């Protein structure tokens, strides 16, 4: 959220509109233009910047030199299998645990900086809130802890309840909530006070398909208003739906970073139907990728990015007749598994 964007929020300080969803009705919690914490940012710096971040728990290495950069205003997917170090990384960024090495900057300040936490919303993987409070009381508590100006509490709480679809349950005790409702409440807590950075750790783990759709709608609305979203998930479909860029984590390291299109196109495959190739063509073309005959077709996998035109040119120069070229679309899951196997 840039200062200019804050100025666009209007006299009520309300956020930008969200795409309508089942729960998200377009409103986001009140933007805090009178919040000194919101102004204390380092413009231009990435939302998150980690350099060789390490974390060791006795003999277990949870993070092994994680480096990544998350730009402001993007939805960044942090993908990896269970035990890859994703939640440890999130906790390091929030200052809940200390790094064993390396450094991380969040919104232009060292990770865990007290003032910067005012500008961060967080939904933990293990979302639990005081079961003896009502949903509204939990949100008010976080308004206090977030040091939101008191006049804004009522509006912020109502907005948060509405966005996450709990308007009718605000006065019910959290202890009576289902797991999915508690996760919705956690999302509401994370959105309070219009944070510049929202960190969501497995935000749909307890939600049904409707809830997942709602969360995707909320994430898109956050992006539309310029909020950075750091989405920690192992659900690739979730990332494919909403993320601008992703990092794939394996064994505590980032093994690939980029947009989904870049990742999927990093090692393209192509299916060819070719006739008239002279003997000895194989030696000239083998270097383009991994060749597999498939009936009348040839499948060329694991090519370097951007080499398809060169391949077609080379076939033609060898006297071949290219009858058909069909790019093979690799799914994120295939690419994900490929990357994990490579490492």
């Amino acid at each position, binding site marked *: 959220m840039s200062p200019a964007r804050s100025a666009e929020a209007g006299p009520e300080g309300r956020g930008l509109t969200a795409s309508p969803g089942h729960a998200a009705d377009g409103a986001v919690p009140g933007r805090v233009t009178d919040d000194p*914490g919101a102004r204390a940012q380092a413009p231009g710096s990435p939302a998150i910047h980690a350099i060789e971040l390490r974390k060791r728990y006795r003999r277990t290495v949870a993070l092994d030199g994680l480096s990544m950069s998350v730009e402001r205003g993007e939805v960044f997917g942090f993908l990896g299998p269970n035990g890859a170090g994703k939640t440890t990384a999130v*906790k390091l960024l*929030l*200052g*809940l*645990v*200390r790094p064993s090495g390396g450094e991380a900057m969040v919104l232009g300040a060292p990770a865990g900086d*007290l*003032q910067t*936490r*005012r500008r*961060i919303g*967080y939904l*933990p993987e*293990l*979302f*639990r*809130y*005081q079961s*003896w*409070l009502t949903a509204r009381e939990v949100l008010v*508590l*976080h308004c*206090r*802890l*977030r*040091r939101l100006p008191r006049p804004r509490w009522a509006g912020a709480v109502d907005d948060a309840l509405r966005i996450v679809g709990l308007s009718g349950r605000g006065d019910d005790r959290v202890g009576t909530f289902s797991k999915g409702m508690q996760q919705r409440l*956690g999302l509401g*807590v994370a959105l309070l006070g219009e944070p510049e950075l929202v960190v969501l750790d497995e935000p749909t783990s307890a939600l049904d398909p409707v809830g997942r759709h709602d969360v995707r709608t909320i994430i898109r609305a956050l992006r539309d208003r310029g909020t950075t979203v750091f989405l920690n998930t192992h659900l690739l479909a979730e990332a494919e739906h909403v993320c601008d860029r992703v990092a794939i984590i394996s064994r505590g390291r980032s093994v690939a970073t980029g947009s989904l299109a870049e990742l999927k196109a990093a090692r393209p495959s192509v299916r060819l139907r070719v006739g008239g190739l002279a003997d000895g063509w194989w030696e000239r073309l083998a270097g383009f990728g991994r060749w597999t005959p498939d009936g009348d077709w040839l499948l060329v996998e694991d090519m370097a990015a951007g080499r398809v035109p060169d391949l077609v040119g080379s076939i033609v120069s060898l006297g071949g007749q290219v009858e058909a070229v069909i790019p093979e679309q690799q799914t994120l899951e295939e690419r994900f598994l490929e990357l994990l196997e490579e490492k």
Partner: protein
Amino acid sequence: MSAVWTIALLTVREAVRRRLVAAFALISVVLVTLSGWGFYRLSHNVGFTSGESHVAMPEAVILFMFMFSFVVALSASAIASPAISSEIDSGVLQTVAARPVRRGEVLFGKWLGLAGLLAAYTAIVSGLQVAVVYWASGYVAPDPAAAAAFVFAEGVALLTLVLLLSTRLSALAAGVIGVALFGVAWLGGVVGLLGETFNVHALRTAGHVSQYLLPTDGLWHAAVYYLEPSWFITQQLAETPGVRGNPFMSLSAPSWPYLTWAAIWLVLVLVLGLTSFERREL
């Protein structure tokens, strides 16, 4: 409102909502009612001579306060042991710690809230007790307010220690260790008294050391002193060394150096708890 007050009020509200306050109230009513009945029967015992009645009332008050101090200490341990560790285990604390709040503010707020509950509990039961004993027998201990303050101090000492343990250990372990240490400190006091009575230097030293390491027993003895009429102490001092004194008596007022040490001990343990929690990884 500062984060410390927010957490302190949250702690009190939790005690109310989780019916801890209701349980305390119920126990207090039972305690005071039973003791009222007991004091009434004791003071109206037709078999008592006036001299026996004169001795029985202070002793009964001291015994009641001993039992009550035990209830306060156990309650302190029970409410402090899950305060940090259970909230870390459940994940509740991570959502609070991710906010612009110092860990020290969270711990101090919890300490303040729990100590406030303990203070209210001690004050109400002690006040009711004074009223009931007066109604039943017309007897009032020399300084029941000072005695209640020292019973509260004893409870707060244990509460602070268990809160420190709770920053590193599970609720069960912190509670069990806290109660065990409380018992060991009481035994240490008994050992010191035996050393005093039979003039065994090593036992006397062990008793003193235990009172400095964990001042709960020392504070209990301070409470007892303010419940004893002056003739009671004079009479005990006149006894031969072999028979005077027992764990329910105190023959001298608490010394200022000891009370100063108890205050320093409390602050040290609290600061240790704050530091431990600041360094705890969530």
